[in-house]
């Protein structure tokens, strides 16, 4: 199950009902199921790096905007500002941690049928049954 702090961070990264074309946030794309699959099948390296990235967002990102951690103490706008500050950090590893968060979320978001339909992308098949030759 997705830990509460992770959910809050990812919800800040990808909020629901906040964009006209893409109203889908972390809650609407089945991230819970994806996360379970990730933890079950991903390489140890990816799992460790993802957890480090969550930790970094939780405890380091508030410091970048002069606030005390953890990130979960703050309202949406402040959380978004803190995460955005990770992208501008002069520390390479902090920037990389935001990239890891976006990569993992992107793996779920970019494959989601609703998201792809909204962008007119072909639906991404996750099973061979959707392939043209089968």
């Amino acid at each position, binding site marked *: 199950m997705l830990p509460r702090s992770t959910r809050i961070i990812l919800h*800040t*990264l*990808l*909020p629901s009902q*906040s*964009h006209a*074309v*893409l109203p889908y946030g972390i809650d609407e794309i089945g991230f819970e199921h*994806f996360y379970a*699959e*990730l933890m079950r*099948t*991903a*390489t140890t*390296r*990816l799992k460790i*790096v993802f957890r480090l990235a969550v930790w970094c967002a939780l405890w380091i990102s508030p410091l970048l905007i002069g606030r005390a951690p953890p990130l979960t103490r703050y309202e*949406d706008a402040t959380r*978004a500002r803190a*995460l*955005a500050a990770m*992208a*501008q950090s002069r520390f*390479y590893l902090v*920037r*990389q941690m*935001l*990239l890891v968060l*976006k*990569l993992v*979320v*992107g*793996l*779920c*978001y*970019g*494959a989601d049928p609703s*998201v*792809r339909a*909204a*962008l*007119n*992308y*072909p*639906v*991404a*098949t*996750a*099973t*061979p049954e*959707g*392939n*043209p*030759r*089968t």
Partner: protein
Amino acid sequence: MIFDGEKEQRAIEADFDYIIVGSGAAGATAARVLADTDASIALVEEGPAVQTAEFVEALFPSMRRIFRDMTMLTTRGRAMMPIIQGSCLGGSTVVNSGISWRIPDDVWEPWRAQFGLGDALPLSQLHAHWDLIERELAVQATPRAVWGENNRLMDVACSKLHVSGFPTQRNVRACHGSARCLTGCPFGAKQSMLVSYVPYAEQRGATLFTSARVDRISIKGEHALGVRGHFHQPTLKTNIAPFTLRARKAVIVAASAIQTPLLLHRSGVRAAHLGQHFQAHPGCSLVGVFDQPVRSWFGATQGYEVDEHRGDGRFKVESIALPLETLCAALPGVGVQWLANIADAPHMAIWAVQLRAFAEGTVRNSFLGTEVRYDLTPRDMANLRRALRFTAELLFAAGAREIITGVHGMPERLHRPDDLKYFDSAPADPAAYTFILSHLFGTARMSVRAQDGVVGTNFCVHDMRNLYVVDSSLFPTNLGVNPQLPIMGVAMHAARQLAEREQH
């Protein structure tokens, strides 16, 4: 015949004339040549046998199934560059774009003059091999019908700026333009080794071992006796059953410029240059946002390229259709801003720089696993800045309304050609850029004298009698062009020499 390691529950012992480790461009080509002889062949692949009908578009399942370490192996150095390698039957040819280049004369010439390899790798014979391979794999320029807008826009830019660009030569039969090369062609149109030389060899009697990791080569004195390893579940890395394969004639290593030196080292081969001289082609991209839809989901994944500065700037520019999942991660912003950028994806063209870097790194086993150390040099960074500026110029010439740079320390977006000046003062630190690393070379390089390399001019490891290396590990330098065809030509040359020697 195929032994699928995911299903094998019993230990296997068997004898073959040749054991080939790795089923990518090099291993499959060696198998294709040796399968035409009377010899018995084992083709051993660490990754699973994933058939065309099993390829899926969603990136995460593909990463688990057909990419090595889910692309999580990164270089150590100033910048962490993910190393992109296929790990499945057919190797990286399953996940590349099928781009076919011969070794350019200006790249081969130092191999002759500086490294003394003119006789070992004679260009005239390599051209004859490439002629054959190009015929067999249907290498041709990307037809206009499957350019799609992403590739067409690059053609427009080249015409406007009068620079050298052309539709990419690719090994594809009847491309559908599904833009899915990177997760395995679902139509079997791309002539990866999975659908070409591996079945060719299998039909002529080669035995395939998949999901079969070679732990070590058994060596006694100057002789390679065979290989020992485990069938395993490739994603979870759990061992299932051991196998032992004995080689009557030779062991041929074609496991890539990362796995080959590691395997040789694990097997007791010691050479000062083993795992050294690691070279690559770092890739870095820009995103152009256009008023009109680009719809990069239709068209050849990489159907157009620009080689204007391959010689003087050591870079090429290529169009590329990234999976939406990857594109999402590459776009800037958090929250609503990120969503707004993702919503623009249908209007985006991604054009990538492929840099022929001067940098050399190392590959070795450490207690944390595979360790690849690699840092770009100041000259590489100067070339990269120039390459990105040139790419941005192309994008504006094609009509981009803005360009997303993705470079830390530069404006996030460029809005007009005047903004190109920002590249002149762009950071010299590799950590400011986002790279991927593909096209790997040099870690068991060929040399005339034993003290200068790992592999002799007969493709045999120095001081060994029947342990051969035929992949890009033996290349003395990187190429500046896509390596599949060069690797195949060299592997074909090596395998033919080997077959001829055995016959006499």
